[in-house]
């Protein structure tokens, strides 16, 4: 047990979990959200809204399969439009979940225990949304299995030197490991649901999912070891995924993409957008489900600090991009940066600076970090800013590259928007369903934070 440290009032914002909770009360509170809580009107309306948005994806995908990728705004030279922008945006959002569940576990940050389950769920759903785009973008998604190396009658093998193939391996590994880590983390909580459920079908479903978990000390010992190993493996994995995504750009020779700063600055941006999305989702959830005694102001404060820190790395990335475009003395690089700031997409660039750098500076203030409503608005602004960042990177580099004769212009069509909004619907639908069928907070890790979990020295008899 770590020794309590005196924290001066100036920085102390409250406990990790409010006093008055016991082993039984946290189990009943979190389990009760799944087992006892009635389906509310707000949840139903929210699910319907999300499910309605999801129809955009259905319609957009059907129309795309019928007509081909020409229904989107992509053209030559803008071969990568919304599909890649949204892919990178969604993948980035996923990164916060892994950071919270794996890296903060290794760093022994116990405050993460209240938010890791939800953040990991967010990761899974975000990666699902991200995965839609490259597959749809192939134009012939029924042939997507060609991306994997398998013996075939055409005697063709994938190009293993291509970052696009690295992406296939990175994203599929990321999804698989995140799902496995998530399921392993769920086992003890599924057992709690099994044991407290009153309805026979709930007992049966959670019973099967919990695989017969009984909390044996022999099991816990291997379980903890496996969790630690998974965290250790997921930590370099999460850093590698966005590095590989940035290689999609950095390995090319397009001005503005061919830079060595991309991998670290993409990873920081991913964590930045991910924490913003966790805040965007967590703040309403903790209010509507009355969890502000478990997801306390301390959590919001910490998450806002991580967002601020990664946001500053991103700001450094932007300034270095601009500086090296100038310092390289390469006229194409210089033109790219000048065109980004003053060209047809200048508005997007300056909005990006506003959303990602200027407005988040408010997070230096503790008043902002501990005011859920203001923090929620700032987090949404960051989400928008990070989407704009990907738009600016993809479009401003592509639409005017080396030869003025091959310059072009990109504008998304209604089908681009339909698919994008559709994945937002998919994400929200998954979140709404998750809230009602699985415990949204890791109960057994929460128990570890309570005074009742402490093993005291006992006189030997």
């Amino acid at each position, binding site marked *: 047990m770590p020794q309590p440290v005196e924290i001066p009032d100036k920085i102390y914002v409250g406990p990790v979990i409010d006093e008055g909770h*016991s*082993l*039984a009360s946290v*189990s009943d509170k979190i389990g009760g959200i799944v087992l006892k809580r009635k389906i509310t009107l707000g949840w139903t309306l929210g699910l319907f809204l999300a499910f309605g948005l999801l129809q955009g994806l259905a319609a957009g995908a059907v129309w795309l399969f019928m007509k081909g990728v020409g229904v989107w705004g992509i053209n030559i030279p803008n071969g990568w439009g919304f599909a890649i922008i949204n892919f990178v945006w969604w993948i980035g959002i996923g990164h916060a979940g892994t950071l919270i569940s794996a890296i903060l576990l290794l760093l022994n940050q116990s405050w993460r225990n209240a938010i890791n389950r939800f953040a990991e769920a967010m990761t899974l759903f975000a990666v699902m949304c991200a995965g839609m785009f490259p597959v749809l973008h192939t134009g012939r998604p029924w042939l997507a299995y060609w991306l994997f*190396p398998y013996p075939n009658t055409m*005697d*063709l*093998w*994938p*190009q*293993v*030197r291509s970052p696009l*193939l*690295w992406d296939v*391996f990175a994203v599929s*590994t990321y999804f698989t*490991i995140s799902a496995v*880590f998530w399921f*392993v983390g769920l086992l*003890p909580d599924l*057992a*709690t649901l*099994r*044991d*407290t459920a009153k309805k026979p079908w709930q007992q049966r479903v959670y019973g*099967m999912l919990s*695989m*017969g*978990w*009984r*909390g*044996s*000390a*022999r*099991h*816990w*010992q*291997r379980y903890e*070891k*496996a969790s630690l*190993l*998974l965290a250790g*493996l*997921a930590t*370099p*994995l999460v850093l*590698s995924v966005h590095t*590989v995504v940035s*290689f999609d750009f950095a390995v090319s020779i397009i001005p503005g993409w061919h830079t060595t700063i991309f991998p670290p600055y993409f990873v920081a941006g991913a964590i930045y957008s991910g924490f913003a999305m966790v805040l965007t989702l967590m703040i309403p959830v903790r209010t509507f489900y009355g969890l502000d005694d478990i997801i306390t102001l301390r959590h919001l404060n910490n998450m806002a600090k991580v967002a601020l820190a990664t946001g500053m790395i991103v700001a450094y990335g932007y300034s270095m991009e601009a500086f090296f475009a100038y310092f390289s003395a390469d006229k194409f690089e210089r033109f790219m940066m000048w065109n980004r700031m003053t060209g047809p997409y200048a508005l997007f660039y300056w909005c990006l600076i506003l959303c990602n750098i200027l407005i988040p500076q408010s997070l230096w203030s503790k008043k902002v970090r501990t005011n859920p409503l203001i923090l929620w608005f700032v987090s949404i602004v960051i989400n928008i800013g990070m989407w704009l960042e990907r738009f600016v990177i993809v479009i401003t580099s592509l639409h005017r590259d080396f030869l003025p004769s091959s310059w072009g212009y990109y504008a998304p069509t209604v089908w681009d928007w339909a698919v994008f909004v559709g994945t937002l619907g998919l994400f929200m639908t998954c979140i709404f369903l998750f809230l009602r069928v699985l415990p949204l907070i890791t109960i*057994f*890790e929460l*128990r*570890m934070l309570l005074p*009742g*979990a*402490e*093993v*005291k020295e*006992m006189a030997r*008899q």
Partner: protein
Amino acid sequence: MSAHIETGHPLYGLMAEFETPTELVHAARRTREAGFRKFDAFSPLPIHELDEAMDLHDNRVSLFTFLGGLTGCAGGFTLCSWCASAFPLDVGGRPLISVPMFIPITFELTILVGGLTAAISMLVMNGFPTPYHPVFNVERFATASRNKFFLCIEADDPKFDRQATATFLESLGAEEIAEVAP
């Protein structure tokens, strides 16, 4: 104390219930010191002190994970080399086995196979899925995943004796002692 110890019908073991993790760790240590080996402690949260008290040091998960990671690493590099050689693309005479470009896939497969091995070896060694286990025959055991702590000494243990073991568990300060039907 409400120990209803009878003789005659078959038995999986005797289960004692405790209120706090401290009592459980204490009881587990005493049980081991008394010479019992076939016993287990059950708790709603991991208790690291139990590893020492029960002398648990199973490192096979780490070993298998390491071997899985190595397999993934070797497999990933072989896969890249195979693909690059089976469909050779000669770019200005550059080597077909271009090691730096193979690192990302090799790395990802190391993580993938290592991670899957960690999870699967943990599940297999814990004997999951376990559709039936005698400890669930004790009604109070449902609280083992909520807020109570249990210790079960199995009847298979050579030192086990219905009456004596029940008395021993009582001496550990158990709140309640129950017989576990097999």
